[in-house]
Structures are given as structure tokens and as C-alpha cells.
């Protein structure tokens, strides 16, 4: 019944070491959320050992529903309570994967994640807010994230007066594509 569908978002390297780990303190939090870091890390290492190189997408692990994807040399996980909707959680993982992918210009690996940690952190924050799934639209969400402090803003403006018909058409096409995508979800 609760919106608190996510207990943790984890990004681990292939040795099971933390790249990013965020356990959410919510009414449905995993016991791990308040565990000492050593215990969390042992959970993470066992999880990585179990999932590395096995592209199963999903498993029940230590009393949690866990979905994951391996992206080059890192693994991205979402940890959820056992009774959560598997497809819903997996969809959220897909959204998260796509937002990270966009933020890093489709070159996701450990080195890039560490280089552009700000983008990855913002990506995670934009998809899950303290255990609640915040977004399921990776394209729109990516548009809202800055990649550095001095970049030009990339968000499309809806000002048609100066840019002419072509950009208006492109904009409409993009929106239509998004709408179609939503219907398919």
C-alpha cells in the first residue's frame, strides 16, 4: 500500500566495493538501513558475488527483492521489500539506468562514474526520493539535470517565435514520442 517501494539503491564495482550506496530510512526500511557500514558492505559483497556475470535481472536475496543490471564493470541495484511489484521495481531500475546513461553520455563504466560522480548522484536523487519512486520517465528527467556548474542549459524552451517551424516540429515530435512511450509502459 505504501509508496515506500525502494529500500536501497546500490552501485557496486565488480569486486563488490561500494561506488554509491544509499539505504533509505523509511517506515519500510530494510534492517540494513540502520546497520553498521561493515554489515551493509558484507551484504553488498555477497550480493555482488552472487550477481556478477549472471545477467538474471532479478533475485530474492537475504529477504529482499533485488533487481540489477550490469553496465560494463559496475552493477546497479535496487533493493525492495519482498512484496513489491517485481515489474514496477524493474521499470524503476530501467529508468535509473537510462538517466545515468544520459548523464554520462552513454559511456557508463566505473571510471566515468567516479569522474562524474555529481551527475550520477543527481541521477539517483532524481529517480528515487528517500525510498519513493520519483520518476519513471528517463527522458524528461534527464533534461532537468545539470552536468556541470557552467554548462549552457539544455532544456528545450517552448518559445516558438524565433526558432521557426523546424524546431517546433522537432519539439512536437519529441513530445509525441514520449507520449507513445508512456502508453507502452
Amino acid at each position: 500500500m505504501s509508496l515506500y517501494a525502494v529500500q536501497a539503491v546500490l552501485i557496486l564495482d565488480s569486486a563488490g566495493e561500494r561506488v554509491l550506496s544509499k539505504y533509505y530510512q523509511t517506515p519500510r526500511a530494510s534492517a540494513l538501513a540502520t546497520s553498521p557500514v561493515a554489515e551493509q558492505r558484507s551484504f553488498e559483497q555477497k550480493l555482488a558475488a552472487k550477481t556478477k556475470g549472471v545477467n538474471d535481472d532479478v533475485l530474492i536475496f537475504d529477504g529482499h527483492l533485488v533487481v540489477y543490471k550490469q553496465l560494463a564493470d559496475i552493477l546497479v541495484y535496487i533493493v525492495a521489500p519482498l512484496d513489491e511489484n517485481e515489474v514496477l521495481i524493474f521499470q524503476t531500475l530501467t529508468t535509473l539506468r537510462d538517466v545515468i546513461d544520459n548523464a554520462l553520455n552513454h559511456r557508463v563504466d566505473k571510471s566515468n562514474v567516479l569522474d562524474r560522480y555529481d551527475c550520477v548522484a543527481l541521477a539517483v536523487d532524481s529517480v528515487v526520493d528517500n525510498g519513493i519512486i520519483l520518476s519513471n520517465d528517463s527522458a524528461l528527467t534527464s533534461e532537468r539535470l545539470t552536468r556541470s556548474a557552467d554548462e549552457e542549459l539544455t532544456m528545450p524552451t517552448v518559445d516558438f517565435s524565433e526558432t521557426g517551424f523546424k524546431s517546433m516540429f522537432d519539439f512536437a515530435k519529441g513530445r509525441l514520442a514520449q507520449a507513445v512511450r508512456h502508453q507502452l509502459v
Partner: protein
Amino acid sequence: MNMPQNDHGALRSPDKMTVFQKCVSNFNQSTVSVDKARALLTDLVHLFYLGETFPEAEATQLFFTITKLFQKENVGLKQMVYLAIKELVPLTDNVIMGTSVLMRDVQQKSSTMDSRLYKPMALRALCSILDASAVESMDRLMRSSIVDRDGFVSSAALVSSYHLLEISRETVKRWSNEVSESMKMPASQIAQYHALGLLYEMRAQDNVALLKLVVSLDENNVLRDANAMALHVRYIGQLLTELGDHPQLLPLLKVYLRNRSDIASIEALKTILAVCKNEEIVAEAMSVLNAYLESPRAISRFAGIRILNRYASVRPDLIAEYCNSSLENLITDSNTSIATYAISVLLKTGSASSVDRLIHFVTKMLTDIPEDFRLVVVDAVRSLAKRFPNKHKDMLEFFADSLRQEGGLTLKLAIVEAISDVLGARSVDTLSDSVDQALLMLCETIEDSEYPEVTVRVLHLLGEVGPASSNASTLVRFIYNRVILENSVVRAAAVSALARFQDCVPDVHNLLERSCRDVNDEVRDRAAVALVIPVPQISKAQQFSIADLEKQVQSYLESPENFSSAFDISKVAMQTDEERQRQLVPEALDEPVPSAVEEKVVVPAVDKHELLAALVEAVPEIADLGELLHSTAPSSLTDDDMEYIVSARLHVFPQHLVAQYDIRNNFDLEISNVSMETDLDFENELVKQFGTTIPTLQPYSSDSLYVAFTRDGTPVGEIPSTMRFVADGSDEDYALDDFEITASAYVVPSSVADFDAKFAELDNEETGARQFATCKTIADSVSLLKTRLGMFPVSGTDIVPEDANIHTLKLFGVSLEGDEVAAVVRLVSSSRGGIAGKAKVHSSNPDLSFTVVEGL
């Protein structure tokens, strides 16, 4: 914290102190570049996301220096600032000061592109620092944000409101109009999910409002978002469970089955199979479910097979009908989780004909699957074993194989439980070869088991099943090895197991005698008890009624005269397994029974209700006195060899005392009109109300008469009693010993876990001293005190060494009003003869301390 040790990680992980110092020094300079500031904040957030944390003082300092960055109007920087603030909030109490700067960002007009990029994040950061009173002041801002046309702002407001429920539910509830509006006309798809989730929380306590909401969602086809639909399905399911079948709800669910979104459809499947009894809908659900089992997407197959696994034991027939062929394909699924669930389902639903094949199959694959799934398989085979007891030979072999393999404690225990199930089934012939083999295999297990828990469980099982086996003496050898080699916990279990073999293996007696010299007292006790009390041969189906056993033991312990003969266990009522299960069920629903015996009152042997009923039958007026609080043990008022033998006991009622005199006529003459004259000296504390008479008392017969008093408080003292009757036509008086009312009338013996702590905790100290002239030894005075005070001797202090001249007795009891009382009595046997006692009494009630000291 350990930083990642590999090269890459070590190079990139920021150092905590460096980051802290750089943040503080740079952010305090207005000249810091936005690039540099964002880089530093990134390092800070990176630390948090690796599990690092800061002490409160440093976190507070960081928080304040970071708020200085709000002066810089740069989106890229602001986004990182909000992220850092959210991480700092749990570490410091002083965040509320940040409210105003965050407010400024949230209240920026949405027209500028910049503000659209940071406003939702600012709103979420702002809500993370609010306390209850600040939430109130945010009322207008939250209302307008919830219905903002920017989906990101609306979602941020809705999700933040959801978090705020924990802090200020009442304030959040006031926004329900806005939430409702944003659910009907969401600014983005997912905002609908957030709005619906929040709306539910606002109405969760009210099923009528919830029903209205749930039904309204369908009528206008409001929901567009798949996540929101999944929520809708769950709410329908909850209402169906709570309200029973509702005409409007089931059709709603059925429509969701064929929803174009897997999320909604999977949720509908879960719900229907969990709550729905309608055959038609269930059948449709099964065909939808089967389609998921054949889905190309692993996540859908996984979701489908999990639902099936849960449902398998409910309707094995349906699963066989709809899904069998897909299931057989899934056994070889590339995803091990799916394959294992498929096996588990097949095992649960398998028919007698397919069991052999299945068992053979899982035995082969068991080594290849991860441990947690081995557990799933073992549980599945266990339930299969229950359904097909005649296949126990194969099952036992399977379990034996599994037990031999490496495995964790949980798995091993599950296997032993499963074996115990199979061996315990009544249809299993304990003399069969397969059982013998299983027992020997269990013996091997304890030879090299790494888990004492498993060894103890196996030893118990061997003790239960082993004595009937043809290999009993071999088993004894294995068990005795544990006595020689293991720690005391295992030794104790082994001794208990050995005890069960006493009847069939003669040498066991010697082995047990050896264990009587064990260094551990529990092991010694068990061995000693086993040697004296043979294990009763009770069939599994029948066990003692625990309630009756308790009652009988208590009445046996009540008077020392009983101790001349052994407790006769054959008088205890028996009950079957089924009866016990029935009794256990309602208890299981109740609150857990407190396990500590600390304040448990020792229940009088005879049920108070029965006793009261007997009293009322004898004297109807007693019915008006109210609840029977307590009854004392009888005490004799005459010597045992007199013509008339009288004993008396006291029944305590809220405002009354009833003295019951049991009179036996030991004389060759009928007496009549027997009554009791009581000469009270209690002022107003005790006033006689009425007395009954015994019309006639035949020679060598007994009867009772009653005298009722009104009481004020807890009077103690003597009731001088004289029996009056008519014998041979003339009035006679017969003087009795004084009937003493002691503290035992108002105090119930009770045990306490830690007497000394309790004694220290209770105040209201009273002290008193007394000479026990009638007592010859300290032991005499101890038993006298026990009965007089009505208190329980704690930690064996009632046992007095024979040659002791000094002894300390510790007593504990609970008054009828529930006040606790503890007494420490120092007893000294004086050289002049007689015993002197000095008592310290502590109680939660000063009057009670006084009563107890008075009663000495």
C-alpha cells in the same frame, strides 16, 4: 570506515578531513568559483554515499557554510547544494535555520528556466528539514505546489507531503483537496501515482471513504499511470479482504487482469489469487498467469512464477491444469531463481505418479543451485512428503543426500525438521530398512556437524525414534560419543537422548551413571533424573494435558504430607495432538505470553471459581459477598486424637472474610445444632455478620460450618473460637485453639527472578523481631514463617543446612491488590533454646509491610 582497497577506488575516494576543511575554508570565501564549489560538494556527497558520516558539530558547521552558497545564482551549483543538504539533515539538529534560504529558491517564479530546474529539488530539500510547526507555516506554499502545472514540482510536493505524514499528519491531511485535484488532473503521469498514494494514506483509517475513492477511480477511467494502477489494485485487494466480497470490487479487478501494463496486470494476478474465490475469475487469472510464464522477459516470468509458488499449495489442481507444460519448460530456465521456483511449484503440485521422477531430478540438480534455493527445494520436498507418506523411502534418501552436502545452519535445521516429519509420520514403519539407514545417517551427521544447534536437534530426534529401531545399540554408541566429545549443551541433549534408550539397551544405565559425575550441573541433573524417573512411554498422538498436569503438581506440592508417596502421573488427564492444537490456536492469536515468570502469581491448586461455587452451594448468602480473592490453607485448631477434630481456613472477599470450620465427630455420639462462638477483639476491623449451624453430625462423619465477618482493611490476629452443640439433650461448649489470621490471608506466594534487585527497588521498610518459642530448629521456624506469611521462599532459602545456627530466609509474595512484598528474615538459634528471628520487610504499599511484620 575502510575505503575501497583496489587501485582505482583508493585513487578516487576523497579523504574525509581534507574535504571537510576545504569545504569550510572555500565556501566561506565569496570568491570561490561555482565549478570548484560543485566539485567540493560532489566529494562531500561521495563520502556520504560511501557510508561516511560526520559528528554533529562538524555537520552543523558544514551545513552553515553550505548555506552561504545560496548567494550564487547558478543552477548547476544549487542542485548539488540541495543534495548535500539532504545528507546533512539527519546529522544535525540545527537545520531549521536553513528554511528561509530554501524558501527563497522555492518561491522563485517558475517562468525562468533556471528556477524550473532547481525549484523541485529545492522543495524536496526544504521539506526534509521541516519540523511540525514549520510544516504549518508552509501550508499555502504546499497547496499551490501540489497543484503546480509542472509535473516535477507537483511530484516533489506530493512526495514531500508523503514524507511529512510522519512529522505532521494532521497538517498534511488538510491538503486533501489539492491532492485529490492533482490525482484527477495530474501534471505528469507519475504525479498521479504520488497523489493516489498520498490520498490513500489520508483515508487509510476509513474504509467507507476508501471504498468511495477506489470505486470512483474506475468510473471515469481516471488512472493513466501504471504505478498508480498497481496501487489501485492493492487498495481493491485490501477492501476485498476487509469487507468480504463486494459487488463493485471484483469486476474492477477482473478488468485489470488484461491491462496493457505488466505492472497493473501482475498486481491484479497477485490480488485475485490471494483473495478471490470466484472460479470463473480465478480460471481467467490462471490463463493470464500462464502467459507470463512464457514471457520473453525474465522479470515477468519471475513475477509469474513467484505468484504461482505462493498459490501452489492452495490449488494444485488448477496449476496442473493450466500451467504444467510451461512449468516443465521453466525447470531449465537460464535464470536459476525461476528454475528453482518452477521445481518448487512442481513439487507442491506433483501427483503420485510424478513424484519419483521429480525427486530424482531435484537430487541431481541440488548441488548446482545456491543455498537459499536449496532451502526452497527442501521445504517443497517436505510438503511433498506430507502428501505422499508412502514415498518416504525416496524422500529420506533425498534428505540424507542434502544433509551430507555443505550448507548453512538454517538449511541444515530445515533438513533435520523435514526428516523428523517423515520419521514422525504414523504410517512409517520404524523397523523398515530405510528408517534404519536414515538414523545411521543422522548419526554420521552429528559425528562431524559444525553446528551444535543441529547436533542437539538430531540427538532429540534419535532419542524419539531410535529406541524402536533394530539398531538401537549402535545408535547408543554414536550418542555416547557426543557425551565424551562435546560441549555441555550437546552433552545435556545427548544424556536426554540416552535416557530414552534405557528400556531397550541395558548398558545405558551405566553410561548415565557416568554422566552423573559430569562437570556441568545441567548434564548431571538430567542424568540423575533419567536414572530415577523412567521416561514414560507415551504415544505421539497422546500427551499430558499441560493445564491438568500443572494443577495436579501444584496440589501435590501444597501439603508436605503428600511427599510420603511419589507423584502419580497416571492421574493426569491426557489429550490428543488435535486437542492441544485446538487449544493453542486461540492463544496464538493473542498477544505473546510474557515469558518471564517474574511476577507470575502461583495459582491456588483448586480453581477459585469452583471453590466459590461450592461455598455458595453451602451458604447461598456468600453469593452476595462478591469475588473470592483468596483462600488460605486449612490449619488445625485441635489435636489429632481428640473427640472432635476441627480445622479452619479463611476465604477472603473484597469486604468480607469467611471462616470455614471443618468439623469431624470422632466420638460415639450424635451431636446436633453445632455452631461456632467467636469472641472477637478487633474493634471495627472485623465484625461478625452471620454464622451457619450444622443441624446434626453423625458419629465418625464430617461437615463444615461457616462464619462470615465484614472486614475493614487487612486485619490480622486471633479469633478465639468455641464450638457449641447439643449432645444427649444438653448444651456443650468445646474450646478450640485460637484461629489465627496471618498475613497469608492477604498475600499470595509468588516467585521473582532477581530477589535482591526487587528488594532494593521496593521501599516502605518495616522491621520486626520475634522469638519462636515453639520451634526447636531453624527449619521448623522456616516452615512456620512460610505458612504464616503466605510468601514464597526464593532461591531455595527454605532449605536449611542441618547444623546451621544462623540462616537467612528470603520470601516474596504479591498482595491481593497486586502490591509486591519482599521479606528478608535472619534466623538465629539461640543457645538457650528457641529461635529468634529478625525481619526486614519491603513493599510497594506501606500498609502491606506493616501487615506482614504484624503477622510474624
